């Protein structure tokens, strides 16, 4: 009897150990699923095109996604609270033309257009946030309204025409290099670090998760839900503004038509990166990987010279495929 038992125990232990490894492997896949998919994409691309892995090309990819990635971080936080932000693309346009107005050479010092842009972006965010928090309007509608209105404002202010002719200092923001690294990439890295810390390691971040996890429970736990929402949308607006300033500087032109469709790319980055549209789930690193996947795809298409009519088809399939392969998503429902 005793022997039997110990054999069984041993077996159980063995099974347990095996299970542990399996669990570990599952955990890694679950936790880093989309990241692994991204790596796989990169490997395939580098085999198809020798140009892909060149530092220069990778730098270009990162600089290209910097704008969407910065927007997507704000959008991610909004989605984590269970909301959505459709206004980012139009806010980019509005900030672009307003910033451009103050960025001409020999007028204002460079911080003026930057501050004007950031202020306007934050302000639009604050309005959306207030409508959502105090008006109890679904964020979809509040930001849809803002999306429409901000686009109109951008056209009105610029009379539908692009605004160019910038000071050297202003052009440095999007086009300059610092220690051989493009400035937008440096800004991106800074924003990633700041936003990641904000979301994962501060009270504000915990409240964002709490609101998305269960808004009622958040209220009962003493979270000032309205304030957090307003602050959050303001921050998201600020990030859109920052992205807009980089873009405006980079293309040397304030564009009322800028940013069209960016909101969808930003949301897609977040969701591909594992953010749940039901709220409560999502991370900044995930979103960055999501943005990278989209960026690498676009770059790969251009490098390989794929028939542009096939590109959207392949892209659509890959977006769905990536999320499908992402084990985490499979489990979270």
């Amino acid at each position, binding site marked *: 009897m005793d022997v039997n038992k110990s054999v069984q125990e041993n077996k159980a232990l063995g099974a347990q150990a095996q299970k542990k490894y399996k669990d570990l492997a599952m955990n890694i896949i679950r936790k880093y699923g989309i990241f692994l998919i991204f790596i796989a994409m990169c490997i395939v691309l580098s085999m198809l095109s020798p140009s892909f892995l060149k530092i220069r090309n990778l730098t270009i990819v990162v600089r290209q996604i910097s704008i969407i990635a910065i927007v997507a971080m704000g959008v991610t936080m909004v989605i984590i609270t269970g909301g959505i932000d459709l206004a980012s693309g139009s806010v980019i346009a509005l900030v672009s033309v307003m910033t451009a107005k103050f960025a001409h050479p020999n007028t204002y010092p460079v911080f003026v257009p930057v501050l004007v842009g950031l202020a306007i972006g934050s302000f639009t965010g604050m309005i959306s946030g207030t409508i959502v928090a105090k008006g109890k309007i679904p964020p979809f509608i509040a930001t849809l309204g803002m999306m429409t209105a901000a686009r109109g404002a951008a056209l009105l202010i610029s009379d*539908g*025409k692009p605004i*160019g002719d910038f000071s050297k200092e202003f052009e440095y923001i999007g086009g300059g290099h610092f220690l051989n690294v493009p400035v937008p990439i440096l800004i991106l890295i800074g924003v990633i670090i700041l936003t990641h810390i904000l979301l994962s390691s501060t009270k504000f971040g915990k409240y964002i998760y709490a609101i998305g996890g269960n808004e009622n429970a958040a209220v009962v736990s003493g979270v000032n839900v309205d304030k957090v929402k307003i602050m959050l949308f303001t921050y998201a607006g600020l990030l859109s503004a920052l992205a807009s300033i980089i873009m405006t500087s980079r*293309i040397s032109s304030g*564009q009322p*038509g800028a940013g069209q*469709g960016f909101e969808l790319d930003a949301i897609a980055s977040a969701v591909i990166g594992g953010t749940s549209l039901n709220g409560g789930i999502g991370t900044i690193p995930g979103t960055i990987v999501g943005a990278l996947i989209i960026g690498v795809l676009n770059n790969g*298409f251009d490098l390989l010279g794929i028939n*542009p009519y096939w590109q959207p088809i392949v892209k659509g399939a890959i977006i769905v495929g990536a999320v499908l392969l992402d084990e985490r998503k499979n489990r979270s429902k």
Partner: protein
Amino acid sequence: APKAAEPAATPAAEPTKAPEKLKIGVAMSQFNDKWLSYMLDSMQEYSKGLTDVEVIYVDGKADVNTQLGQVETFIAQGCNAIVVNPVNTDATEPMTKAAKEAGVPLISVNRLFKNQDEATSYVGSESIKAGIMEMEYLAEKMGGKGNVAILVGDPGNEAAIKRTEGFKEVIKKYPDIKIVAEQIGMWQRDKGMSIMENWLQSDLKIDAVASNNDEMAIGALKAIEAAGKLGTILVGGVDATPDALEYMKAGKLNVTVFQDAAGQGVGAIKTAVAAAKGEKVEPIVWIPYELVKPEDVDKYIAKWQ
């Protein structure tokens, strides 16, 4: 600047493999545009016949930033010449700068860069001219007086801006012509149609509709026709698409402006190949607009066959 030296080295390093084909990158502002797709077709058709040249086409999806990234990617890839159909003519400075630094010839097609002198060559016409030609014809037919309604494409889009500008430039010269309505139709026929239907219901008296393109003009015509007012309102467009020429032949469309898609497309590739080979190229290759009046519609219909 010291940085300029480093990227410039890249193209020099590329042609080490001797028998490699010339690589030319074509960055279109968007594939999803009818007239541009004709130009693209002509480019593809022509480049198929070139044995020593590989041409890569990319779609800027009407986004300035995307296009800029694509031009940079071309440079990083080691293209020998780049053709750009700019999304926005005012936002071309970073492209010209990047191309200059890398020593890659940059040819603009169909839309003139704001800083064209920084680029290698331009093949095409001037957008504002199309607007001017269309409106001048309409103004003349209106007898120098009356009310005009304007259908604008995608605002912020260069063709929309420039053509509308052209309209207004002409109208300014006629004190008796007034703009009574202006609406955004996003280049789309269905939008043009809905807008015109609404205008026809309003108290506005409209004598002529100046549209940024033919598609919206056709939309407007369909609305006018449905309201039984065909012939009472002048309608003009730009592009001289086959559809538009049909409408003109049927006596519905009053004027359009022909832009030589094939001429521009083939011209751009030819210029790019020459520049890539190090030959000298003209800084501007004009492919002029042609006003299409109902009288000579058949000539243009023949062009599309």
